[in-house]
């Protein structure tokens, strides 16, 4: 019985030594991962040995536990997706703002001012070649500003589409990696550091996916995750779907999930991630700005053309269109008017064809048409707004969108920081805590060693007394 107790005590000490050693290793892992937000804190899983029979109590190390809070992680994933969407939209709007209202004098507003000033000048010196040259120069500026702004927005829409396609490829890449990790996790024994490390890698990738497209995360009993986006599975166990980004006939961006032969359009259900931000910026914000810019270009061209057609040029000929599309034809509608905004071919070569006079107050001194065109600066276009007001409203619109997006981004940065803090509360590493743990396991190790020494001395004594 006594011999048996010493053996039991020896086992208790050995288990304790193993537990302390394992604990020290886990603390080491935690300290190494302390500065990595993706790392989830581990703890030693210890079990108490029951007393009685052949058992002499004590604890034994049964594995490594991962301090993972599924709810905090889900919240972090959701907030990450929202922040990414806001960030992508803000970035796009910064560029759109630069295209429409650059911080320089090269704006439509300044071009309009110069245009009307040139016609005012022409009104007072209608047969002056310099005044006519000034009008043509100002007209070129208006056309250039419309085309630059339109091209800037068009180019941006193209860039956003290409960027969205690249993001989709990044999602595909990460889904494939997660699928592989899912399979490896399922194959790994529970409560091991190796499995925990794989889960860390997998969850970091899940956050990277959420940064690109909003996902819901469902965990299986075997440790694998399923990812859903817009109610459609992106990933189930070891099988990953593929994302496609394409353009519909109306040139709007569509995002679809492809699983084998099945394609599910999730564009309307995107609610987060860079893809959502890029899609909103491209097809709502920038598209709306393009529509407004086109309408302004069309209204402006129409008003100037109408006034000019009522005039008579220096040669006594009735005025023709002032602004046309590049083929010399008048605009039939607002769609695409800004990008196609052109001074009528031939007008530049014949400044005398600028109609400043009217049939009742004929050239070269008649100026009623020049005055009628310059009066558009105050009388307004078809929209009822002056060109400057229309541009101001357009610029105000992009400004409001940016302010709103900036505010949303600041909010999301705050909520992500909060979600990260919540997740870190349960899953993060505190060096102070690890210091205490390390000390505890060190003491436990020392104590276990001492127990072993004592038992060894006792057994030695027993052996010697037996002789």
């Amino acid at each position: 019985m006594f011999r048996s107790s010493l053996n039991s005590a020896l086992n208790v000490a050995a288990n304790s030594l193993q537990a302390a050693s394992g604990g020290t290793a886990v603390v080491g892992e935690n300290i190494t991962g302390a500065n990595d937000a993706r790392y989830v804190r581990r703890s030693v899983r210890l079990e108490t040995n029951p007393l009685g029979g052949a058992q002499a109590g004590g604890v034994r190390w049964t594995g490594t536990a991962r301090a993972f809070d599924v709810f905090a992680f889900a919240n972090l994933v959701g907030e990450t997706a929202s922040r990414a969407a806001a960030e992508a939209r803000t970035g796009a709007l910064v560029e759109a703002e630069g295209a429409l209202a650059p911080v320089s004098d090269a704006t439509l507003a300044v071009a309009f001012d110069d245009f009307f000033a040139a016609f005012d000048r022409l009104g007072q010196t209608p047969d002056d070649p310099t005044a006519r040259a000034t009008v043509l120069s100002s007209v070129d500026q208006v056309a250039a500003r419309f085309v630059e702004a339109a091209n800037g927005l068009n180019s941006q829409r193209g860039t956003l589409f290409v960027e969205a396609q690249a993001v989709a490829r990044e999602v595909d890449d990460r889904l494939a990696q997660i699928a592989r990790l899912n399979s490896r996790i399922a194959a790994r024994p529970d409560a091991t550091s190796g499995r925990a490390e794989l889960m860390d890698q997998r969850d970091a990738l899940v956050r990277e996916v959420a940064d690109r497209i909003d996902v819901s995360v469902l965990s299986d009993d075997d440790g694998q995750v399923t990812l859903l986006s817009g109610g459609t599975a992106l990933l189930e166990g070891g099988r990953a779907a593929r994302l496609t980004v394409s353009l519909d006939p109306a040139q709007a961006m569509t995002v679809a999930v492809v699983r084998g032969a099945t394609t599910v359009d999730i564009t309307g259900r995107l609610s987060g991630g860079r893809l959502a931000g890029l899609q909103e910026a491209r097809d709502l914000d920038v598209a709306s700005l393009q529509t407004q810019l086109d309408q302004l270009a069309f209204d402006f061209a129409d008003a100037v053309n109408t006034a000019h057609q009522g005039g008579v040029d220096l040669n006594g000929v009735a005025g023709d269109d002032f602004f046309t599309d590049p083929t010399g034809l008048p605009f039939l509608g607002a769609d695409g008017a800004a990008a196609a905004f052109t001074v009528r071919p031939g007008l530049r070569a014949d400044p005398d064809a600028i109609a400043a006079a009217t049939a009742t107050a004929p050239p070269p001194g008649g100026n009623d048409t020049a005055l009628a065109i310059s009066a558009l600066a105050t009388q307004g276009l078809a929209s009822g707004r002056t060109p400057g007001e229309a541009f101001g409203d357009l610029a105000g619109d992009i400004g409001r969108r940016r302010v709103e997006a900036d505010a949303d981004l600041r909010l999301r940065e705050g909520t992500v920081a909060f979600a990260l803090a919540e997740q870190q509360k349960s899953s993060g590493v505190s060096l102070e805590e690890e210091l205490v743990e390390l000390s505890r396991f060190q003491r436990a190790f020392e104590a276990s060693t001492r127990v072993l020494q004592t038992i060894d001395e006792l057994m030695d004594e027993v052996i010697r007394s037996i002789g």
Partner: protein
Amino acid sequence: MRVTESIRLADAARWITQTQTKLDRLSAQAATGRAVERPSDGPAAYASIVRRGEQIARLESRQTAMEIARARLELSEGALAASADVMLRAREIATQMADGTFGASDRAAAAIEVELLREEIRAQANARGADGGYLFAGTLTDTEPFDPGGGYLGNGATARVEYAEGQYMASSVTGVDAFAAPGGRDVFADLDALVAALQADDQAGVRASLDTLDAGREQLVAARGGAGVRLGRLESAEGVTDAAVALQLTQRGREQDTDFAAVATELALAQGAYQRALTVTQQLLQLTGSLEPF
């Protein structure tokens, strides 16, 4: 609450970014002197600044147009005044020659002088503006309005100038109203009649020309008066426009320009906040470093 290393470092990074962003914004405002440079700096303010810019440009452009019109009207007024003076001299000659004490040779000599006066008036009637256009040709400014016979080759139309929002006035005097029959008297025909009477030693004819010369002169004076009235209205409008431009510039400045006192204060506060964020971050990193042995 558990505070982990990641939270500490993430918070520190966020503080630095936030203060840096604010510092950048304020520095840009202080450097450029503009509180609103792009629409997102203040959407409503930017739209208002654009509208004010449009109004300012419009007012300044109107000012330029009024200056040009004023110069033209001043030249026209001068030409009409000179013409009226010449008409007065012609009337003085007619008054003298209507007297029976002068003989045929005197009247013949006077006829030559009146012919010269007529040419002087025609030269005034064919005067050109600074841009080279004929002042009294209506809108046919490249056509000499009065031929040697005194026939009018211009038209009755006038160029206009906007002197207030939607308000226009003629910026030229038509020669046909000032010098020709549609205005009441054909000045050149009346002078021609005087010359003919003088050459014919027709004392009664010379006497009869006094009334027509008076009427012609009054017509020129009236035309000059009309130009003067418009000049006065232009000067008044220019004053109003100057005041409107100044007001709009002031208002735009309030919306657009930086309040330097406020920005300087905010900048100092932001610099302090940035320094503190850096110090706190440094301390956090030192704290982490102090645990390195573990």
